[in-house]
């Protein structure tokens, strides 16, 4: 008696669940992408099982394309991981939570137990425009500037009346 399809499907489901769990729990960027590859492999186990059940080649061809996409994804992911590592010298993906707004800090991004060294990042910064209204609630115009503005206004009105 041959191996039943449902047993292979259960094995694929277990592998997929383990990959999902690794994707959710691990924090290193490389291990997150390894878990992703594990999920893809589990799906191709299911495809091959159905190919054997239906006695045709469609599932195997789908598994080949899954393998192709996994190879492309691994190449791009490793390139991105290396370039991110060169920026901040860390593989923790929660460091990139710092890309959010500074007015909404993410509490989980400050791990303190094992000597978290905050690494400098060279993000593009927006130029500061104007004053913070909380620090300067009522901008008081200095008298000399106010006088000059008034003088300009009188000049404008004189020119308008002359024309």
């Amino acid at each position: 008696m041959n191996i039943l399809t449902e047993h292979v499907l259960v094995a694929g489901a277990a592998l997929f669940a383990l990959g999902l769990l690794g994707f959710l729990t691990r924090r290193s960027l490389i291990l997150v992408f390894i878990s992703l590859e594990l999920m893809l492999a589990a799906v191709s186990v299911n495809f091959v099982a159905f190919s054997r059940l239906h006695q045709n080649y469609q599932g195997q061809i789908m598994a080949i394309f899954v393998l192709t996409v996994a190879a492309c994804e691994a190449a791009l992911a490793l390139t991105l991981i290396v370039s991110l590592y060169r920026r901040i010298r860390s593989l923790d993906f929660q460091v990139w939570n710092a890309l959010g707004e500074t007015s909404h800090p993410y509490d989980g991004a400050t791990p303190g137990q094992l000597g978290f060294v905050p690494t400098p990042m060279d993000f593009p910064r927006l130029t500061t425009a104007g004053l913070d209204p909380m620090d300067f609630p009522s901008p008081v115009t200095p008298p000399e500037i106010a006088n000059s503005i008034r003088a300009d206004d009188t000049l404008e009105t004189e020119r308008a009346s002359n024309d």
Partner: protein
Amino acid sequence: MIEFIVAQIDPRNLSDWDWPSIVAVALIAWGTILLQVGMIRSRRQVIMGSCIVLAAGVIAFLRAPHELNHYLFLAFAGLATAGGIGLLVFRDPVHAALGFATTILSTCGLFFLQSSPFIGAAMLIVYAGATIIVFLFVLMYAQQSDLTYYDVRLTAPILSVVLTSIFLAVLIHAVQVPGQTAFSGPEYRAMSNERTSENPGNTRGLGRSMFTDYLFAVEMAGALLTLSAVGAIAVSLQKPGSSPTVESAGRNE
């Protein structure tokens, strides 16, 4: 018309539920939590978690049929699951990557058992030969020191294990129909497109089908590979300080 088989199960009747699978999944979840947490805290939790996972494996083994090629299948599936648990549990990322290598090799064994030797060989070459080696290279480049905080700490382990085990129990329940073997009837075969007269493990027939029926998809896969290679080279050629900042923009003006 395709008719799907709906299992005659009353969900209110608790004796209809697939209790051995649920118990096995719950045991695996509990053992995984103990292993994940105990790996940095105590050796006793690790031993207890290993025993619980082994008990779940015994339950799964008792439910599986006992014949010779089933033993081979069970060995490969068990090794794959053990490698996956190793990927979750080991704190050293090199050990975790070796657990993933174990999983991939066992998966190749599953493919050989499922009479698709070409997929097994391709998987062996692409994953075990290329992907894992490159991952290990990147690990060696990026992790020259000892364990770091992001290797040791996990993101919400207990919540993730509970959610994933519920997901796995639902999947197993969906795959198995209690009281009968789900995929053995001719109704499931009727859904397939056409059956080949030859053995589907025939690599020659696989290649003929791929380069005639799926030629456009093959071309698209080639375009995808080329694009990803170009993209990887373009990203990796950027220097780390070359991204535009405010200072450099001011200097250019």
